[in-house]
């Protein structure tokens, strides 16, 4: 249908790249060369950015508030980990498999929980995470239970680049996966499908009246988001060569939500800011004051949420430095 193709073209052309969008990638590459001792932390940050990006599709764009996103992250981590311990060591196929398994759970879970909204949706998401947590906890022989899944051996990337103890391959691997996933998400949110998600967030009844099946769109984005969360979990397991119950914890669901809200939901880059700020602050402040740093973090988050609802990126827009929300 050429008319539709033309309409898509009009929407897509609108969103050319702005130079500020290069900043996070330049910073990430600079970090690789300038901070060789922090590559492990950097890899963890990149993983959390990818995880937050997947949540942004749900929370920031579609307006689905969930506290159960760790289910998909954890499932991706265990899938990638179990493939490796089971003898399949090639990383890229492991990634794809983990994302597919997480997306499949997203399809089943989404089919049930997206029929609800508000509190019920929140509770069902948490319940699914709890179920998976207990399954992983009880399948001791397979998952290592509370000790976690160790012995995750990953073959060299593309047969050449081994995952060494310095974390160089891990860092670049995580960065590459994040970049590809980001390109995908960016294209999606500016396409008519993504615009319709924003419409659904702002007025689902109106989208319905325009002929859009809100349930089908929400389910589609839920599956996509679950797959990306699984991808993040898989990168985590492959680069740390470890998967644990923490990957399926309620705590992780809350942390990624905090990161996204801190950075600014619905702006693509919220996770970049939120995950970086939170994890660098955690690393630095926790060394100084391992107990009390959370107090300052909590105070900061309260002030931010009350006075700058759009997160740190919202602050930038508010100061008139550009940045329209999506």
């Amino acid at each position, binding site marked *: *249908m050429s*008319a*539709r193709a033309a*309409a898509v073209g*009009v*929407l897509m052309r*609108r969103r050319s790249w702005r130079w500020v969008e290069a900043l996070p990638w330049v910073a990430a590459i600079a970090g690789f060369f300038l901070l060789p001792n922090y590559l492990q932390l950097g890899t963890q940050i990149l993983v959390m950015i990818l995880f937050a990006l997947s949540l942004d599709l749900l929370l920031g764009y579609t307006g689905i508030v969930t506290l159960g996103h760790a289910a998909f992250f954890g499932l991706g981590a265990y899938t990638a980990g179990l493939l490796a311990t089971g003898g399949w060591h090639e990383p890229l196929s492991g990634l794809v498999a983990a994302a597919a398994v997480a997306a499949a759970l997203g399809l089943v879970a989404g089919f049930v929980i997206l029929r609800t909204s508000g509190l019920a949706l929140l509770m069902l998401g948490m319940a699914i995470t709890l179920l998976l947590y207990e399954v992983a906890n009880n399948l001791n022989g397979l998952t290592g239970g509370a000790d976690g899944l160790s012995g995750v051996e990953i073959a060299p990337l593309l047969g050449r680049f081994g995952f060494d103890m310095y974390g160089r391959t891990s860092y670049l691997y995580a960065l590459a996966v994040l970049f590809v996933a980001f390109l995908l998400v960016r294209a999606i949110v500016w396409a*008519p499908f993504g*615009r*319709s998600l*924003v*419409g659904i967030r*702002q*007025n689902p*009844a*109106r*989208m*319905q*009246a*325009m*002929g*859009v*099946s*809100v349930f089908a769109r929400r389910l589609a984005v839920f599956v996509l988001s679950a797959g990306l969360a699984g991808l993040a979990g898989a990168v985590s397991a492959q680069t740390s060569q470890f998967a644990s119950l923490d990957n399926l914890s309620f705590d992780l669901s809350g942390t990624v939500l905090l990161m996204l809200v801190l950075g600014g939901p619905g702006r693509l880059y919220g996770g970049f800011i939120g995950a970086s700020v939170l994890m660098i602050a955690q690393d630095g402040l926790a060394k100084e004051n391992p107990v009390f740093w959370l107090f300052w973090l909590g105070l900061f988050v309260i002030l931010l949420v009350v006075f700058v609802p759009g997160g740190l990126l919202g602050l930038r827009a508010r100061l008139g430095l550009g940045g*329209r*929300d*999506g």
Partner: protein
Amino acid sequence: MDEGLALRCEGLCAGWGETQVVSGVDLRLPAGEVLVVLGRNGVGKSTLLSCIMGRAARHAGTLEVAGRSVVGLAPFARARLGVGYVPQEREIFPSLSVRENLLVAARPQPGGWTLEQVLELFPRLGERLRNGGNQLSGGEQQMLAMGRALMGNPRLLLLDEPMEGLAPVIVEMLVGVLRRLRAQAGLSILLVEQHIGLALEFSDRVVVLDRGQVAYDNQDGLVPPDRARIEALAGVSGEG
């Protein structure tokens, strides 16, 4: 015979939850025609449109679009059958630009409305394409709401008081647009209005609602509408 009707309902009772607002309304809108629904505030005009779209609950009665019952169909399925709905509140997406509002759920059809044609109908929107939906005047919002509905290529257009609260110059412009839409082959319009003089310019087919029921029925349009009766039933004091 029903094939020739864009909209038909019989004994339609509708409301919100348990509350009934519309009681036993019969409507027959032949394809390509304009039917005007008049009535004072709160008599159930908007609820009637909402029920046709599938938002308000149908309590009883039949409801057919183009000869097909839409009872039990979700709103999006009714829209895909060709129902376009421009609500009184306009419901512009504030975070989407004007262009995105127009294209986000467009359903292009061969020979149907295109972005260019809609912008030709509403030149003002062409100047505002990059504006956010929250950066528009009331008149521009109304134009966008109507243009967006046309991008869905409806066969039955539900318009809920499109002139309400707008400046005279904008009203004049919208009247011109409605005349052009009336002349479009295959498009049927159900127009809810409070302004009797304006409404009667568009059609002899008139229904007046009062307390949820049809108080005056000239929807066959066989005789000229009885203006004195309509004003007695639906008139606002001071209106000329």
